[in-house]
């Protein structure tokens, strides 16, 4: 995927055939390594770029899933407010099975992940991205084992953050200290929208996944049916036997079509829906971050104020602790201002991001729907043609009896 970035400051190399700056990444060639419990998949990540920050026109590295996780976590830390593209699930169970389909789905999702980062005007400038795309495997391993990010937090902590965002009413009712929350009706609507959206999307995705299974089941039963029909035809002999045999063969052919379409449905319809769900979950994490930032801002503002009051008191008293207090106050003030800045940045970024997100999703889903429709139409036409072609043969069989 080609990404163009803001050209400010970058010089055009006269030697490169296209003077447009580009950064193209692909995740390919999954290979299963290791044995048993420790088995994992490695991927080749190929970077092609003419950006000066990178080490050359092409670089190939080997990465595994946890490296992607590291990248995601780093970006989440550094780029608060931005919706970090989602990763496919860790899935401890399927790891043992590692079916070809699972591997392909994961590879596709990882490829999309990296490309979204590479085409995001802020994220693409990240140093961590560069590290990810270029560092040698040892460095990567070292970095990977150091990382602790929000996603490494215990699930309990994570749930707490989400809970805080959602439930303020109960605390008020119970007379607890009123939690520090933004009172922004627009934002409230947005949060509500996001949470509800996840539910609806998850349901649609569930049915999409089932639909894939149904295709496979129908394919299987067509195959079994075809075999049984053929066996019956073999007993019969003569023209009726031939008719059975033709029908049985046709049925088996269609079974293959169904299996193929099931796979297409999975990759081009169910996965995009799944991706949408993950994206919404990622937004929820950003929402939690924003809540944190807001709380921090408020707390620091409070504390700074108190410090100021204290400082004034000491000044009046001409205490010799004034100097110390002054320093502390200044530090705290700086921190508070930083927190406020951070919070405001998050708000600003989120507003931009949500618009971008909505537009992107409309596009993504539009494509997915189109592929879905095309696939189903292709399948239906294939089925219709196959059966239609059988009719003259059946006519021939019955007339020759």
């Amino acid at each position: 995927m080609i990404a163009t970035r803001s050209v400010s400051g970058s010089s055009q190399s006269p030697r490169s055939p296209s003077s447009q700056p580009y950064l193209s990444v692909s995740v390919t060639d999954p290979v299963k390594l290791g044995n048993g419990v420790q088995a994992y998949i490695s991927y080749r990540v190929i970077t092609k770029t003419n950006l000066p920050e990178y080490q050359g026109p092409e670089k190939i590295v080997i990465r595994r899933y946890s490296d992607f996780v590291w990248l995601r976590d780093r970006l989440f830390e550094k780029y608060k407010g931005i919706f970090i593209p989602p990763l496919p699930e860790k899935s401890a169970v399927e790891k043992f099975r590692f079916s070809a389909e699972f591997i392909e789905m994961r590879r596709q999702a990882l490829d999309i992940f990296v490309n979204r980062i590479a085409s995001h005007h802020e994220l693409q400038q990240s140093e961590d991205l560069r590290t990810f795309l270029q560092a040698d495997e040892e460095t990567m391993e070292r970095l990977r084992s150091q990382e602790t990010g929000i996603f490494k937090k215990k699930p309990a902590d994570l749930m707490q953050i989400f809970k805080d965002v959602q439930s303020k009413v109960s605390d008020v009712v119970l007379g607890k200290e009123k939690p520090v929350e933004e009172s922004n009706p627009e934002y409230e609507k947005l949060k509500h929208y996001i949470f509800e959206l996840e539910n609806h999307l998850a349901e649609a995705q569930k049915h999409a996944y089932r639909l894939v299974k149904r295709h496979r089941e129908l394919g299987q039963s067509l195959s079994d049916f075809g075999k049984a029909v053929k066996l019956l035809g073999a007993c019969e002999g003569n023209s009726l036997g031939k008719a059975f045999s033709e029908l049985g063969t046709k049925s088996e052919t269609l079974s293959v079509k169904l299996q193929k379409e099931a796979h297409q449905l999975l990759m081009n319809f169910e996965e995009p829906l799944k991706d949408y769900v993950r994206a919404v979950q990622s937004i929820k994490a950003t929402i939690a971050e924003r809540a944190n930032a807001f709380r921090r801002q408020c707390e620091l503002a409070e504390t700074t104020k108190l410090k100021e009051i204290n400082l004034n008191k000491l000044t009046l008293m001409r205490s010799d602790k004034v100097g110390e207090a002054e320093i502390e106050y200044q530090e705290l003030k700086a921190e508070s201002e930083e927190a406020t800045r951070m919070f405001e940045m998050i708000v600003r970024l989120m507003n931009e991001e949500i618009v971008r997100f909505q537009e992107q999703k409309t596009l993504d889903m539009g494509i997915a729907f189109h592929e879905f429709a095309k696939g189903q139409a292709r399948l239906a036409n294939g089925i219709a043609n196959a059966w239609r072609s059988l009719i003259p043969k059946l006519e021939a069989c019955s007339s020759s009896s």
Partner: protein
Amino acid sequence: MMGNEEADDLHESREEMESLVLDEPSNGRSSASATVPDHHDPLLSSSSSSFSDRHNPNSSLNAFLDPPSYAEAIFTSFDPSSNGHETPQLSSNSNPRSSDYLYISISDPQKEQELSNSLVPGGTTFYTYLITTRTNLLEFGGPGSEFSVRRRFKDVVTLSDRLSESYRGFFIPLRPDKSVVESQVMAKQEFLEQRRASLEKYLRSLAAHPVIRRSEELRLFLEVKGKLPLAKSIDVASRVLDGAARLPRQLLGEEGMDVNAKGGRDLLRLFKELRQSMSTDWGGVKPLVVEEDKGFLERKERLAEFEQQLSNMSLQAESLVKAQQDIGETMGELGLAFVKLTKFETEEVLFESQNARAADMKNVATAAVKASRLYRELNAQTVKHLDKLHDYLGIFLAVGNAFSDRSSALLTVQTLSSELATLHARIEKLEAASSKIFGGDRSRMRKIEELKESIRVTEEAKTCAEREYEQIKENNRSELERLDKERHDDFMSMLRGFVVNQAGYAEKMANVWEKLAEETSGYAKDGS
């Protein structure tokens, strides 16, 4: 003429869909939740009388989804013979040469009281059914005859038993089960309807059989009002040997059987017992029925093979129907999920792009729901076509019975032959013994005379038995010929119907999806 049931069912499923949207995420039974329809499912394909769109004024969702026009959704089957109406199965009932018909229908179950002689007050109740016949067969009084009688299930059992006795060697359709257990478990209405339908199917299949339809038993059953004038059963052995001359009172048997014979019938009952006792007393080893006709044996084996494969195909057909049903249901559920999404995106509009997305989702929802309906209709048709397989499995049971008739008739002949041989041997022994005595042995002579009389009787019995056996063989043969021909025609039409049905519905579905592809073509990456 669309049956009322049909209209109601479509209306009901439509309402289901609409009401489902109104009550939120309870996944509920989607509109595509129909169980595999039984054979009188009203949702059969019908003529394309389009439904005027039923607008439920309370459903805000109607405003979203253009109610699918039923003219589109309902598919006219290409198969001309199954137009979904309860038309008399004329083709199977009629003799193609002279268009005779014998049309039977059953209706109106009614409760009646058993006139009880017992001490228990109240007596038992049972149900009778009204059996209406329309025919132009001469046996029934010629063209334009129409008449009705009331019969109960017991009468049907009697009819069935009598036919089995009279028409040995024929492929007589099997009567419905007594199914005592089910009658307790099922709701009364359901049970009565199921029984009514199965009785109707049974009588119609009798009427379709070229020989049985002309039987006296059937005629009495259909025509004679009041009590059914058929005895429950008569002794086959006696009937077979009808016309035999008066027989001596004694039949000597080694086991010393009861010889209080009063007439031909009693004696012949003894033959039957002899046969049976021979087959059971030999330590479980039946005397081998030696079927000499190789051609027949081959045929029989091939039929057995065919039956087995048929049974297998029937099983797979059931799975296929289930898989079709499942995919239709899931498609429907997917559609409904998108309906909800559409509603959601329309209600909580925060951004411009949501409108476009909502429109797209609405299109997807519409397509999915339409496809789901098509699957349901496809399946209803598929069930009808593949039902033939079940019918033939029933026919094979009848074939089995006919073959049993043949082997038991052969057993009778062989038993009588061996009995004759025994009698002859005994006479020889007696003659040899008495010839040694000068002047003869009066008691032995008497015995020899008696044995000779037995031989005469037995020989007559054997002749009758042989005649019976030959008749049954002939019945088998002609029935096999008929079966071959009918089987060929039936299966060809079943296959054709199945294929045409599949093709037709696949085309309809392709149209639905192509429409959606067009609606979303703006997103196509490569202008495809």
